[in-house]
C-alpha cells in the first residue's frame, strides 16, 4: 500500500510537468489548429538553453528566465518562418511540417550539445528526500511540481485577465468572429507558439533536473500526445488533467506491471493505454464531440 501511495504522489508530481507541456500543445491547437508533433524537441531546446546558462554560473531562476526569453523569440520565429505559410493547407502537410521541424531541432540540438547525458551541477534542488507522514518524496519532484503549478496558474491568469490572453481565447473559440472584432490572428498564432515554446522549455528544464538531460527527455515531451488525447484535444483543463493522469499511469505501470512484462513497460504504457482508450472514447474526456460517422 505504501508503494502505491509513493508511486501515486511521484506520478502526480511528474504529471504536473507533463500538464505544463500539454498546456502549450493545446494552446497551439486551439488557436491555430496545428497538431504539433515537435513538442518533444521544444522541451529539449528549452532545457538545454537553461542548462547552458546554469553551467555558466548564472543562478537557476535567472537562467530559467533567459530560456523563457529565448523560447519566446524562437517560438515567434518558428511560427513566422514555417507555419505562417501553411495556413489553410491540408492536415497532413501541417503535421509533416512539424515533424520536419522536430527533426531539424533535434539535429541542431545534437550538433550543439552532443548526445551525452548532462546534469545540472551543482544540483539545483537539495538531494535529501522530504518525509511527509509515511511518504518519502524527492525534493526535486516536489519543487518541480510546485514550479509547474505556479507556471500553470500564471498562464491561466494570463488567459483570464490580460488583453492578449482574452484575444487568444476569442480566436480559439471562433476565429471568424474574433477577426471581425479586430483581433489580429497572426499575432495570436505567434503568441501561441511563443507560449508553447516557453512552457515546453520550463517543462524540459524540470524534467532534466530529475534524471539528467539527454535526448530521451524529448521522448518524455512526446508523452503529451497521450495526455492531450486523454483530456480532449481542445480543452485546457483536460490537458492538465490528462498530463497528471498520464504521469500517474506511467508510474503505476512501472511499479506494478514491470514484474509481468519486464523491460520498457513504463515507456510504452501511455501509448498502449491511449490506443485502447481511443477505441472507446475517441474525443477524450472533455473534448468537443463532432458528430461524424465514418
Amino acid at each position: 500500500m505504501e508503494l502505491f501511495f509513493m508511486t501515486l504522489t511521484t506520478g502526480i508530481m511528474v504529471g504536473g510537468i507533463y500538464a505544463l507541456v500539454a498546456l502549450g500543445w493545446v494552446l497551439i491547437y486551439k488557436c491555430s489548429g496545428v497538431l504539433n508533433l515537435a513538442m518533444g524537441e521544444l522541451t529539449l531546446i528549452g532545457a538545454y538553453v537553461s542548462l547552458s546558462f546554469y553551467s555558466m554560473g548564472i543562478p537557476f531562476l535567472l537562467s530559467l528566465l533567459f530560456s523563457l526569453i529565448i523560447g519566446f523569440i524562437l517560438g515567434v520565429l518558428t511560427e513566422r518562418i514555417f507555419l505562417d505559410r501553411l495556413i489553410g493547407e491540408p492536415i497532413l502537410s501541417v503535421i509533416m511540417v512539424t515533424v520536419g521541424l522536430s527533426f531539424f531541432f533535434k539535429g541542431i540540438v545534437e550538433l550543439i550539445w552532443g548526445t551525452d547525458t548532462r546534469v545540472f551541477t551543482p544540483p539545483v534542488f537539495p538531494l535529501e528526500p522530504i518525509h511527509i507522514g509515511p511518504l518519502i518524496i524527492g525534493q526535486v519532484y516536489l519543487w518541480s511540481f510546485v514550479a509547474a503549478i505556479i507556471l500553470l496558474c500564471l498562464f491561466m491568469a494570463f488567459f483570464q485577465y490580460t488583453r492578449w490572453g482574452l484575444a487568444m481565447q476569442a480566436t480559439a473559440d471562433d476565429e471568424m468572429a474574433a477577426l471581425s472584432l479586430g483581433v489580429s490572428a497572426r499575432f495570436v498564432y505567434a503568441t501561441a507558439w511563443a507560449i508553447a515554446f516557453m512552457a515546453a522549455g520550463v517543462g524540459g528544464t524540470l524534467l532534466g533536473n530529475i534524471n539528467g538531460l539527454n535526448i530521451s527527455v524529448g521522448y518524455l515531451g512526446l508523452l503529451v500526445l497521450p495526455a492531450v488525447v486523454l483530456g480532449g484535444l481542445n480543452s485546457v483543463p483536460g490537458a492538465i488533467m490528462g498530463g497528471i493522469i498520464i504521469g500517474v499511469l506511467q508510474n503505476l505501470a512501472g511499479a506494478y506491471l514491470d514484474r509481468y512484462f519486464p523491460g520498457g513497460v513504463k515507456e510504452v504504457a501511455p501509448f498502449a493505454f491511449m490506443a485502447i482508450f481511443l477505441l472507446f472514447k475517441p474525443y477524450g474526456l472533455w473534448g468537443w464531440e463532432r458528430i461524424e460517422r465514418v
Partner: protein
Amino acid sequence: MSTAFLPCGVYHENYPQDHAWWQTRFVRGKMTLLFLVLFVGFPLFAGPYSISVCNQIGYTILGALGVQLLIGYCGQITLGHAAFLAVGAYTSTLLVLEFPWPKFLTDWGLAYPISIIAAAVVAGLWSVLFGLPSAKVKGFYLILTTMAAQFITVDFILTQYVSQIGGRGQAFSLPPGTIKIGPWVIDNERKVYFMMLVLVVLCVIGLSNLLRSRVGRAWVAIRDNDISAEVMGINIVKYKLLAFFVAGFVGGIAGAFWISNLAAISPEHFPWFWSLWLVGVILIGGVGSMHGTIFGSMFMVVVMELLQIAVIPLADIYPKLLLDFLFIKEAAFGLAICAFLIFEPNGLAYRWWQIKNYFNLWPFSY
C-alpha cells in the same frame, strides 16, 4: 495525378487502348530501354558502391509503397510503418533460422522465398490489427494509434520478447549462406540488387494494377470524401482494413527483403525515425503518385549520399563533423521536408508530369 497528355496526332479508339500501360511507341521504347539499363547495363558496369546505393533506394521504394498506398491513395495517415517492416523482417528471420524445415525444401533453397510470403502475410495481419481503430477514428487520432503501433511493436514486443528467442540477446545474426533462393546464395551486393529489382518491379506493377481496379477506386473515393464514398455503397471499414493489409503486406516484403542485405538484425534497424523518413519520402516525391514514391526514394537516398560525400573532405579540417554526420542528416531531412511542403507541395512527380507534358505538347502547348 492523371496520366500525361498524349502527343499531337495520337488518338485512342477503344477502352483497352485508353488504359494500356505503355500507350505510344515512344513510351514502349523508352521503358524497354529503361528495363535493359536496369537489368543488364547498370549491374554490368556499376561498382559495388553504386550498387549498394541502388539497393538502399530499392528498400526505400518497397517500404514507401505501403505508406503511399495508405496516405496517398486511401487517406489514412500512418506514422508507424517501420513497425510492419520490422514484423516482416523478424518473421522472415525467425522462419529461416528457427523453423524446422523439411530437408528437401532447404536443399532446393525454398526456405527464404516461402518465409518472404509468410512474413508479408504476418505483417499484413499485424497492420490490420493496428488499422482497426481507423474504423472509428480518423485524422489526428489515427496518427496517434499508428504511432502507438510503432512504440508497442518495435520498442516493446520486438526488443523485450522476440529478441530473446533462442537466447541470442539483442540481435539475430544471419550466418552467410542462410539466405538462399533456389540454387543462388544471396551473399553479395549484386545478387541483392537483382532480387531487389525483381521485387520492386513486381510490387510496383501489382500495386499499380490494384489501384486501377475496383478496390483502388474505392480507396481513392474514401480518400477524397469518406461520407460520399459510403453513400455510393462502398463498405468503408472493409476497404480501409484491406488498405492496411496490403500496405502491411508490401511492408513485410520490404522487411523480409532487407535481411538479405544485413549481417544481423536488431530492433535498432526500425526506429521511429524510419517511419517518418518513409512519410517524408512520399511527401517529397509527391503524394498520390507511384512515380512520386520512386522519385522520392531516389531523391532522398542520393541526396543523403551526396551530403556524406561532401562531408568527408571537410572532415580533415573539422574531424568532429564526421561524428556529427548523423545529426546533420537529421537536420537536413527535417529542413527538406519543410521546404518541400512550403515551396513544392505537389512533390517531384508533379514536375516530372509537367516536363512530360511539355515535350508531348511541344510545339503547340495550348
